[in-house]
């Protein structure tokens, strides 16, 4: 065999191996997707949207409590997290810039926090807000000046919707902060100069010209951030906990689709497991929808 023949053979081999590994990877993912769709569609019916949780065996059990709880948790953390993320991103891009050391440290830390284990954030929020026996509570909050600032007196001792919302917000802010920062930097400097030349103060330039100029990009970041947070389970396990019935009081434990899914799927009852699949299907479609919407937005922006 000549050298050339050998090279061609090796090339063919690698092409086959690589296509094969792609096929294996994609096959697994299709498997998961089909399982999700088949079980999900099988489990979905009107009862799910009408009824709350019920003991196993009851016909009239549904996911109304978890759907509404999920919407509340995601909605409120979006309302808090989005403005915080956008304003912090605006600081990085407009006041900090690329050369500021502080801005770069904040960028690095946010990048790391985006991939940090979300369960640790749940543990952290638990310690800060819920845990009445905690070292912190004993040594700080209950005794000295910090007590006025802490959430503990009002919310301590019980899992609560607020704790879940705070955990989700901590996860969401770095994502929105970094996309806003990146998107604002794409706004041409001449646009800012034009606004300054008209005599506009800086805050007006930022709010009414720069952020507005980058609004599609920021919206994409918001959609991706919300999508990411919607699928979080681990940080809710010991913060918002769970509830089998509809609850809209945020100082009480509140149901979420993800934790409900976890509890139902690990239960031995078939009808609960079925509800778990329905929850999985609804949540995945929501998240995929947000992702596709974000992509379409980016796409139309690029076309312009």
């Amino acid at each position, binding site marked *: 065999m000549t050298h050339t023949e050998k*090279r061609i053979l090796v090339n063919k081999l690698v092409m086959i191996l690589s296509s094969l590994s*792609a096929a294996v990877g994609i096959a697994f993912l299709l498997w998961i997707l089909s399982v999700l769709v088949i079980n999900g569609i099988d489990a979905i019916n009107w009862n799910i949207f009408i009824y709350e949780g019920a003991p196993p065996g009851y016909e009239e059990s549904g996911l109304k409590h978890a759907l509404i709880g999920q919407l509340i948790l995601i909605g409120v953390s979006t309302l808090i997290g989005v403005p915080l993320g956008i304003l912090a991103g605006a600081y990085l891009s407009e006041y900090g810039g690329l050369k500021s050391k502080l801005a770069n440290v904040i960028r690095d830390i946010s990048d790391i926090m985006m991939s940090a284990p979300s369960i640790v954030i749940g543990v952290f929020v638990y310690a800060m807000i819920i*845990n009445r026996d905690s070292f912190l509570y004993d040594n700080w909050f209950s005794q000295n000046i910090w007590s006025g600032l802490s959430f503990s007196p009002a919310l301590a001792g019980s899992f609560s919707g607020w704790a879940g919302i705070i955990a989700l917000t901590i996860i969401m802010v770095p994502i929105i902060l970094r996309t806003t920062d990146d998107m604002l930097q794409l706004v041409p400097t001449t646009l800012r100069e034009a606004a300054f030349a008209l005599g506009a103060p800086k805050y007006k330039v930022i709010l009414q010209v720069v952020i507005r100029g980058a609004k599609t990009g920021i919206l994409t970041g918001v959609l991706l951030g919300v999508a990411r947070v919607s699928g979080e389970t681990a940080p809710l396990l010991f913060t918002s906990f769970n509830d089998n019935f509809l609850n809209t009081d945020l100082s009480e434990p509140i149901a979420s689709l993800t934790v409900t899914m976890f509890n139902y799927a690990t239960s031995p009852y078939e009808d609960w497991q079925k509800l778990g699949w329905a929850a999985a299907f609804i949540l995945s479609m929501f998240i995929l929808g947000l992702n596709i919407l974000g992509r379409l937005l980016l796409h139309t922006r690029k076309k312009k």
Partner: protein
Amino acid sequence: MNKFLDKFFHLSTLSIALLTLLVTGAIFGVLYLEAKPAMDAFGFDFLVSSKWAPNLEKFGAFPAIVGSILSTALAMFLAIPLAIGVAIFLSEIAPAKLKSPVGVSIELLAAIPSVIYGMWGLFYFVPIIRDLFGGLGIGLLTAGIVLAIMILPFMAAVTRDAMNTTPDILKESAYALGGTKWDVIKDVVIPYAKAGIIGATILALGRAIGETMAVTFVMGNVHKIPLLITDPATSIPVALANEFAEADDGLYFSSLFYLALVLFVISFAIIAFAKFAFLKRGRQ
């Protein structure tokens, strides 16, 4: 008036931006303070002792740490070749018609919440492992495989992005010299994208080690060093997810906080290393 508003806006955005640093610092600080009783009680022994007995107030994290390392290592061992294969396929081999739909579906799969991968693993993968190897089907092997599948889309997408940064002109020059596709991949694309590929892999490792929901369903949460690869085991996030809500006594709690601190430090260090050593900002 404008001057005042300007200053106010500057300071308020600055303080919000600083809040991110404050929260990160607070996570380290609070976990440390909460873990302190366990640190005082067990010291360094906590990390190397295998005894996890809440009823005896003895806590050792060694099985959880070993379980985290083994399950992540197994997942990386399975996912790295597949991810590189998928990335090569997407960036160099696939015809233009396939590239975009396959690429987008891989990216969308990376967005599916990990709890769903865990659920799939429990209902569809555990029985297969049980039939093949006997035992419960729940354990290290299953956890490693489910983790590998969960991390695969993310890893493949980032690796492909790194490979796509290779300028076409470099590849074309290599083809013009008579290189085969494999020659171009191994002598041009991979060397050019090396930093990005390694960075992507380490970032995926950092995510995998802190992943909770994909493995909680299928690992078993048994605080023992697994002797067989099919044995039930535990990992730090699995122990936290299973035990945190039911821990009652102070030292038990504190030990779980210690575990969380260990996990946070490890994954923070891994992600930071990937970022500073391999993934430079602004290169998109």
